[in-house]
């Protein structure tokens, strides 16, 4: 682990300089506040801008706090993941392209330390953002709807965090393996594309990383398929480890592609 702490500091400094440390949490928090507020005021918003005919009566569904958490998860599953992929697609391939990597690769660094320093900093930023977003949403939900059981919320966030970790690791490994454009395409395909596949024909299996967000929401429903959940957690952990291993090897193999 040659210079692991130095690489960690370098990575942190880079993420503060390009403001990712600031804007990614802000985006997740804003989404987290927006969801309960807009759902709470939906009837009034529709009344003022929805062009409803005079005298039309429409019964609005009564949302519970748990349902708001689920719809927020839906937002994160699309906009959140899009933000994660677009923000971090170039974290290794971009360094190769701009030549920052030349400064690093001429030094006797270990690629394991190089990849892991990125992995830790990126996961730290993204997980903190997701947690802050859910906590902000929780606060607003407890004001506008009903207070949701803390234990359920933590179970929900913990399960979802593992999925987010899987996404970040996949993006990083793709970025180590390919150029930025290909990395972005493959990451979006793997995260958002496979989600659609899983929602279409996913009833034939119960174990996959893409099922984790579903298991996260099932904390609220109470219909717990414990075996399916734990197998998915195991599979996701293995997938994360394999991606880290592949990422380390690919960043070593692609070191020659660096622009000098």
């Amino acid at each position: 682990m040659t210079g692991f702490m130095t690489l960690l500091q370098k990575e942190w400094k880079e993420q503060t300089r390009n403001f990712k440390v600031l804007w990614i949490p802000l985006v997740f928090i804003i989404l987290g506040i927006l969801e309960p507020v807009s759902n709470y005021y939906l009837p009034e918003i529709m009344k003022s801008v929805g062009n409803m005919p005079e005298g039309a009566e429409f019964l609005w569904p009564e949302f519970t706090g748990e349902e708001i958490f689920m719809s927020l998860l839906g937002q994160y599953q699309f906009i959140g993941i899009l933000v994660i992929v677009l923000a971090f697609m170039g974290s290794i391939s971009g360094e190769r392209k701009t030549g920052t990597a030349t400064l690093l690769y001429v030094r006797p660094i270990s690629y394991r330390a190089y990849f892991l320093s990125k992995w830790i900093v990126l996961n730290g930023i993204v997980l903190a953002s997701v947690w802050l977003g859910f906590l902000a949403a929780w606060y607003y939900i407890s004001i506008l709807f009903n207070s949701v059981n803390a234990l359920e919320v933590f179970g929900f966030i913990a399960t979802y965090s593992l999925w987010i970790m899987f996404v970040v690791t996949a993006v990083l490994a793709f970025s180590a393996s390919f150029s930025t454009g290909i990395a972005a395409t493959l990451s979006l395909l793997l995260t958002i594309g496979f989600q659609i596949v899983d929602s279409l024909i996913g009833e034939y299996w119960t174990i996959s990383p893409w099922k984790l967000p579903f298991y996260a929401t099932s904390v609220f429903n109470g219909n717990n398929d414990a075996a399916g959940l734990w197998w998915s957690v195991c599979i996701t952990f293995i997938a994360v480890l394999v991606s880290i291993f592949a990422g380390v090897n690919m960043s070593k193999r692609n070191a020659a592609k660096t622009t000098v």
Partner: protein
Amino acid sequence: MSELADVPWNLILPLLVLQFILMIVALIDVIRNKRTNGPYIMWIFIITFGSLIGSIIYFVFGRKND
């Protein structure tokens, strides 16, 4: 004016403040280093009028980091 008073400001205000911070940070960044993809005046307009989405688009596509 009564309509303005009806708005639940204590709920909406944190949201506006956060969006404002995001916008200001993006604007300061544009004006400070001016090295953007495309003319930086265009990015100032996108950030000012695009609110949340505008700032995100700037940070993702507008910044040129080298």
